[in-house]
């Protein structure tokens, strides 16, 4: 158990389990993410990766098991509270506010710095103080010139970039990215990879990713999940040689 106290672990789960009316989607997962790493969670469709993310961020309650973030037990905490502690997620389906402008999207995250915005009597021009920072963030992810675009009109790739900008606006210590490059054209994938590489400084990233070349180039540690269980863990070289992993991947993806 001594290993559990290691201070370089930012996120740790023990026996994390989630059942959906008898069906075990996540089954006794012990996950440890080291501070500062990019950690990949891979596995065939239905392996339980998104469910894991939902558990880690309290969007779902675990049936069993515990989650510790920065040494603190966050199991059963309210999802908004988890976000405020610095563990912020993105979603598999693009998570933007479609009928607001790109600038307003990012500003909604920056606005969190005020604490709760219950002040319904103040003018929204109060929020102008965040405009410069929002522009800078949009610029960072390659969205300069799109500040006033209503987000529903942006391309898919730009929406994903905007999502990252919005997440970054919270300056989270740890980001969970669920398939950030899924469904993207090649050029867009490269841009997102480049972006992730730039933003990793000073933070920890846990990401679900299907594109193995992205995983190879980007991730320090890889956890392979199948049918809710951890099948293997290690760096890319180790994991990709693991016969069980090869079997699982070939078995379900190409069968």
């Amino acid at each position: 158990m001594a290993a559990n106290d290691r201070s370089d672990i930012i996120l740790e789960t023990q026996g994390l389990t989630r059942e959906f009316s008898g069906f075990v989607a996540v089954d006794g997962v012990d996950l440890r993410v080291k501070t500062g790493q990019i950690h990949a969670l891979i596995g065939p469709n239905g392996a339980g990766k998104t469910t894991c993310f939902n558990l880690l961020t309290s969007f779902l309650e675990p049936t069993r098991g515990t989650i510790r973030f920065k040494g603190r037990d966050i199991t059963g905490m309210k999802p908004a509270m988890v976000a405020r502690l610095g563990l912020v997620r993105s979603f598999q389906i693009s998570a933007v506010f479609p009928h607001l402008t790109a600038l307003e999207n990012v500003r909604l995250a920056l606005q969190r710095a005020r604490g709760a915005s219950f002040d319904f009597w103040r003018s929204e021009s109060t929020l102008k103080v965040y405009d410069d920072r929002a522009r800078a963030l949009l610029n960072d992810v390659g969205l300069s010139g799109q500040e006033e675009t209503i987000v529903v009109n942006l391309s898919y790739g730009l929406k994903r970039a905007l999502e990252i900008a919005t997440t970054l606006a919270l300056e989270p210590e740890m980001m969970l990215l669920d398939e950030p490059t899924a469904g993207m054209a090649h050029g867009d994938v490269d841009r997102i990879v480049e972006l992730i590489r730039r933003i990793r400084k000073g933070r920890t990233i846990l990401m679900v990713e299907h594109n193995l070349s992205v995983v190879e180039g980007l991730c320090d540690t890889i956890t392979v999940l199948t049918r809710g269980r951890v099948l293997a863990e290690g760096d890319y070289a180790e994991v990709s040689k693991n016969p069980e992993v090869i079997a699982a991947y070939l078995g379900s993806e190409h069968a």
Partner: protein
Amino acid sequence: MLGFSRSQFIAFLIMVALIVVCPFVLYPVFLMRVLCAALFACAFNLMIGYVGLLSFGHAAYFGMGSYVTAWTMKHWHLDAFLAIGLGGLTGAALGLVLGYLAIRRSGIYFAMITLALAQMVYFFCLEAPFTGGEDGIQQVPRGRMLGFLDLSNDMTMYWVVAAIFIGGFLTIHRIIHSPFGQVLKGIRENEPRATSLGYRTDDYKLIAFVLSCAITGIAGGTKALVFGIATLTDVHYSTSGEVVLITLLGGLGTVFGPAMGALIVTAMENYLAQAGAWVTVIQGAIFMVCVLAFRRGVIGEIANWRKLTL
């Protein structure tokens, strides 16, 4: 200006001009009925249009506001300002309790729960002694406003109602265009995302609900004062349905739609009154035509046609 877009500001000026001119052309009492319905619909629209929650029990807050204003005017002879204020407070307090029970639900479940809770309020009003049961509270004196405005004069009463409506209208506009309103928009657009950014979305929705109920209570109280009566009709589910209809007809989620809807529906009720039972049928037919032909409501269609935000 005032946080309005250009087209909205012009529409606002037109609305204010109409409010000022109309009492010299039309019956003030009819216009006051329109303004009370319009304020009620604006408050309702705050929930459905800007939070995306359909409250199917807004009559509860309207009716309780109406009862409390009527009762305190009649038995305590309060100043009208205080009595209407108490009506608003009643709406807010009831909204806080019932909203707390309902706000975790969404979509049809929210509508059903608000309806069920409003039915409980209706039965409470039916049985409670202070409401006067089937008779309601009648012959409520209009009294004075702020000590010096004698409201028994229809024109004085009209200007007070106009001021209350415009005040409420601008309050709602400010709520929508505040830092709070910005979070509300985020919640309406993508609630899980708002949560993942660290917003406790239920709290925001509940505050919006309480604000909506407070303004609804004020509308109810004002109505009670104008007509000197508070009855079971005010808390009946048909009143909840009517405000849905008004808002849909005028244009859900538009700033001026609810007021326009209130004008149309009230005018229909007023001028079709001779048609007796046929009113409901004609209303239903017009409503169906509108829903089929103008999905966005009158103001929504105009806005879409002229490419404006209204």
